[in-house]
């Protein structure tokens, strides 16, 4: 599990990016990489450091699909839903995986093991259907292979 950050943690992390031109996205990525999500408590700290309003920072976090307001499951499975994957049956495959795990898109299994998210293209369109599991890519996915992948996870 990721630790819950204190304002001090956030301030320290912030310091590594303040020299950048346009530091907000690198800061948010770093917070999410370190803590698994962007906690609400980080928002005022960021706003103060960057001389922005809390509303502005909240607006930025909300705009992007990547940033989470709550932690995900222990593993994140991203299934591609874009056209090339669809042409190779990704929708049927996704429906099967979701029902196997008993979740809907963006949902996390009840044991906290896996969160499933849609993604619109991983650049693996010549070996569709494609997926990314914890940052590792998988192509030419079949139902059997997908099932083995998720069942192997702790």
């Amino acid at each position: 599990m990721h630790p819950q950050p204190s304002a001090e943690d956030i301030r320290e992390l912030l310091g590594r990016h303040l020299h950048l031109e346009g530091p907000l996205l690198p800061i948010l990525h770093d917070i999410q990489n370190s803590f698994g999500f962007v906690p609400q408590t980080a928002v005022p700290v960021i706003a103060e450091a960057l001389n922005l309003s809390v509303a502005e920072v909240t607006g930025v976090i909300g705009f992007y699909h990547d940033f989470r307001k709550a932690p995900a499951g222990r593993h994140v499975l991203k299934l591609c839903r874009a056209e090339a994957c669809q042409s190779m049956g990704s929708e049927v495959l996704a429906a099967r995986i979701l029902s196997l795990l008993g979740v809907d898109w963006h949902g996390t299994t009840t044991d906290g093991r896996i969160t499933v998210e849609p993604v619109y293209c991983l650049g693996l369109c010549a070996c569709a259907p494609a997926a990314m599991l914890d940052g590792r890519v998988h192509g030419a996915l079949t139902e059997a292979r997908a099932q083995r992948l998720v069942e192997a996870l702790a």
Partner: protein
Amino acid sequence: MKIYVSRDSAAKALGADEVAEALTAEIDASGIRGEIIRTGSRGMVWLEPLVEIDAGQGRMAYGPISADDVPALLGGRIDSLGLTEEIPFFARQTRLTFARCGVTDPLSLSDYETHGGLVGLRRALVMSGEEIVDEVKVSGLRGRGGAGFPTGIKWDTVRLARAAQKYIVCNADEGDSGTFADRMIMEGDPYTLIEGMAIAGLATGATRGYVYLRSEYPDAIAVMEEAVKRARAAGILGADVLGSGRTFDMEIRSGAGAYVCGEETSLLNSLEGKRGVVRSKPPLPALEGFLGRPTVVNNVISLATVPVIFEKGADFYAAFGLGRSKGTIPVQIAGNVARGGLFETAFGMPLGELVEEVAGGTASGRAVKAVQIGGPLGAYFARDKFDTPFGYEDFDGQGGLIGHAGLVVFDDSADMLKMARFAMEFCAVESCGKCTPCRIGAVRGVETLDRIAAGDSAAVEVLTDLCEVMKDGSLCALGGFTPYPVMSALQAFPEEFAGVKEAAE
């Protein structure tokens, strides 16, 4: 014996890492003298994991190879596909931008230089900004990010702008389905992008650059970051580019999962740390771009093609192509195809030849029904448009666009009404929200398509009107081009929108 295995994401997605590990283990166990080199991809994705073995007779290809095949492979019991470069899919290409991709170790600077790298930058270093821009103009290079705007003219605007700080921003957001050329070049030959950006800097007086790289590409991010670090250490980037006294340095930045951030002004807002909302133009980014300063925003392939233009000369490059579409284009063949991958060729090859001959038709073995060209905002072409030559003007004339030159092939089981609905749904999910025709229109579009699917054929007229409004009233191409896939599907396959579902019940 040298053994080459790709480290490209598509190869990894098909098991290349496991193959490389098995090769290492087998070499250790058997005492074979072999060196494994991880390259970029040759672009023949249907053959990945592709293993190339050079025992003195050139690089012989074997693929697809699984980890289990490795003992048989090293034992000489697997048939070779012949020399890699003689495989018909490869032999038919003109590889200029991708000349090194798949050949070299992507992060080896000595490989890069041995294969023509840095020749272009060295040449540009002794030219004036105006001369560099003229060379790009003569090459005929147009933006590979979609709009096809002449790169030289864009650079000239930035060059002539007066400002204390200018920027080169590389658009590596590559959000379109069916496109992966940007990813492949970044993973397979990252220095060519760095070199192109440095030349752009010299041309325009920009001393700083950013690559805005989508977060969906963690492998590309890692390779580019390492390449920048090594280029800096080698003096290619920094305060004294190759000992010239000129400055150019750059950074890699990750996006955060928003398709619209591929639009250049939205990208600049995102890079500044704002919501990725589209800015209205003017002012052009060339005059008021990143942090309000003159900025070149170019696609990865546009920039990565600059070094070869300077290495071989603008006239050499411009001699390829068709009409005002000069040079080569890395066509990305994807979806339901027998031979998917990256195929770099001079502009002008007919679409049908790419789909039927190069790609070999569908993977499912069924008939090709439609091809979507240019990503989620691109039109669907049915077979009656297969004689269209690959060129900006030619596609435009057929009611389509090249976009990033990605082809997504569908077989005859495709449901075109569903694909049209998906286009609207995608637009609704990814809209930046700034203008009503896009933000609301896309939601209405989904509803209207659902009505048509339920048998209400009168809703087709509503859909057509809605598309007109989106086309005319949207600020950027996300809302403005969504009508392309929708209307092209409707026009090519009207029977699927005709309320047949009701009649069948």
